[in-house]
């Protein structure tokens, strides 16, 4: 995938700070709500889960599916977003 969404670029452009979970690429209002009810209210919490799963794409996508019933595109976007962020700032 050569082009990324604006949201992705925005997120990857800077440290995530206290950004809400909905700032993650692939996470919209609905998924954001679901993630918040599951306790993942901030982007860094999702990052934590991402890191706990050792940046494993398959497992992360599976987890996204479980937690907020994200489809494969959404979870792939979110995964890519976090991965790029990690590459940049971690």
């Amino acid at each position, binding site marked *: 995938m050569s082009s990324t969404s604006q949201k992705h670029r925005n997120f990857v452009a800077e440290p995530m700070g206290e950004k809400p979970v909905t700032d993650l690429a692939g996470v919209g209002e609905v998924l954001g709500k679901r993630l918040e009810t599951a306790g993942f209210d901030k982007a860094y919490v999702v990052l934590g889960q991402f890191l706990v*799963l050792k940046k494993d794409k398959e497992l992360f996508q599976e987890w996204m599916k479980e937690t907020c019933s994200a489809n494969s595109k959404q979870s792939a976007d979110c995964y890519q977003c976090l991965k790029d962020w990690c590459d940049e700032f971690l």
Partner: protein
Amino acid sequence: MADQVDSMSDAELRTKLAEHGFPVMPITASTRKLLVKKLKMVLDNKSKPRNSVDNKVESRRSLARYSSGEESDLDSTNNVKERRGRRATTGGAMLPPVSNKSRRIPLKKDSPAKRDSDKGSESEEEKAPVRTHEKVETVTTRRVTRTYANDQDDYETGSDSDVDSDKKTSSPFRSSSRSSDYISSTLPTNDASTSPPKSSIFSRPSLSHSNYTSNLSSSDQLNSIRSRLGLTSSLADRPPLSTYTSNYASSTYQPSTSGVDEIESPYLSNFTRRLSSLKPDPPKPSSFLDRDTTNGSTLIPRRSYITGVPRSDIVDYKAVNDKKFLKNNLVSLALVALVALFFFFLFFMYIVKKNDITSVVDDQNIVVPICQLNIPGNRPGINCVPKEQVGYAKDLMKAIHPKLMARTAAYKCGEPGALPYLTGKEIIEIACPQTDTFSRNYDQCTTDLNNLQILLVKNPRWGLNVVQLKNVYTKDVEYTPLTSTEAVVQQRNKGSVAIALSDPSTPISCLFINTLYSAGSTFVVVGIISVLVLGLQRLYKYYLSYQKKKSEEIYSMVEQIIDVISQETEDSGEPYISVDHVRDTLISPQNREKMSSTWDAAVKFIQKNESRVRMEVQSVDGEDCRVWRWVASHSSPKRSTSWQGQAFETQEGSVNNLTVSPTPCLKIRHMFEKNDTNPNLRTVIQDVILEKCDRCNILHIDIERTSCCVYVKCATPTDAGVVYKSLHGWWYEGRLITVKYLRLERYMQRFPNSPSSGPYLKPSRLRRSWDE
């Protein structure tokens, strides 16, 4: 096993996952569920193969059935020539010694004994080849290998009896072979089979064996062999037998590898599975072998046959497939055909029934008002019919009915001049000239007609109506049916009585044609209308775009004219310039004719709307001509390409100054507006930037019109820093420029073709002095 996973402790789960090759990761409340699921999935996958093994026997049987059917199809449809050709190629390409020798096997007198031993070991597995073999025999092929003819008797019994799987009684070597270890005897047997008649050469056991394995590596291959064998044969019994035995032996030679395949191919027998499991072992040089690999990998017999079909070297498979399809779907096809037949029959009956007037007329249930002498009101031909004349009337009706039908059909089909009824006169003309039935005189005919009319009125179910014509003399088709005998008699005297079909039906062909015609005409009309509409729309669009283009041309012309006027007047010092001179500088000679309208419009526009230019008549070199005088002051700044000063400080030490320039790439915003349609915008921008930053090396400049961004790539980050400082925060044509650094990767992503080194960009025009 899967059930236990839920109740495992974290540590157990971790070790379990590690066992299955998963990276060990922290098991937390949020990941545990996921990992458990994963583990279950893995365990499920592992346990699957075991289950499928149980089906082996069942599937093997199904193959035996299947392959035999297949075989018969195959052989019957094959043509000899083709098979021969294929055999030749395979023989030449991949197994030259084997293919020849295998056919010769039966000649060997001493081979059976050895063959026994390898054949016997697994009786079930033998069924498949043996049964196939039986089918092969039933087919008669024209080609006869004469060399075998004399040996035929010896072998026929043995091989045939195998078919019924009653091996013990019919073939001695079979029964004895059961107990023996077939693996050990495999190689010798192969050798035996490859050896020429009457002589046994055991010299190359390993070679022949390997040939066999490669040859037989998939079910498809098996098929090709079968067909080949089927061909060799009126004697087919012997050769196939030996070949199959050896095939079998070679395949069972490595019996261990079948695991995975069994999952995927429920219909394959153990035998075929083993064949296919051997697939990867031998080198595969020919086209047959790629077929092997594809089929071997799918391993579902039907699939494999189907994938085999399109290949050119097995054309006959196609026929086999078709046949098979027919065979397998026989019942459903038959059902469909039956239903179709039923409806067709119904339809047919309907048509026939409707037209069959005689059956209706001869029906016993008709109402016939017989004239009886003792009833006073009865008058023959008016309200009753003499008994002896009923038959005549019916005959008359039968005679005129076809004619009436034809007329109605013609009328319905829109034939000109056709009428849907028969008048009394016409009926008599039709009926009376016929000599056989109606050879009586005119009066008789009239009487019959009268009687018939009475009968028709009394029997509406006959499908004929006595009708009263609205107008006798004009060819008018309007009529009203008469329902009482009195009315009939009344009208009869006027001569306006006719007979018509009560429910005229249009003939199918006519109906079809009419429908087609009306549909066609509608279609044509709609088509014409839509074409017209489309054409108009296209025309209108074209007109609009033409107008737009024209006005754009005029505006650009006006701008050019003003540029030229201001420039020329400035340069030459004269405050005016000839109109024609301007035109000649702007428009090249070959375009002058073409552009004259644009030019005129532009001149008119300037005259009307341009305050800085005044048109007057001056004498230039003694000749009066129209000139434009530049009225505006010369000192007014040029409209374009102007840097208008800095909005904020970017020099050393200021807040806006970055001490280090991180990348060599920059993104400049607001250099132009979105609706700027100047085709040379890129050159203009490039020149402007290059002029502004003349001290640095710029490799590449490009613009993106949609986002109004200019992208600049410099040779080094330092250069980029210089550009940044000299552009950031400047006003350009009334817009504030902002510059941002851009990561090199992003830049390369956007402009993959931008140069990374080489000549630096130079301004495309001579440097113009502009005010600071």
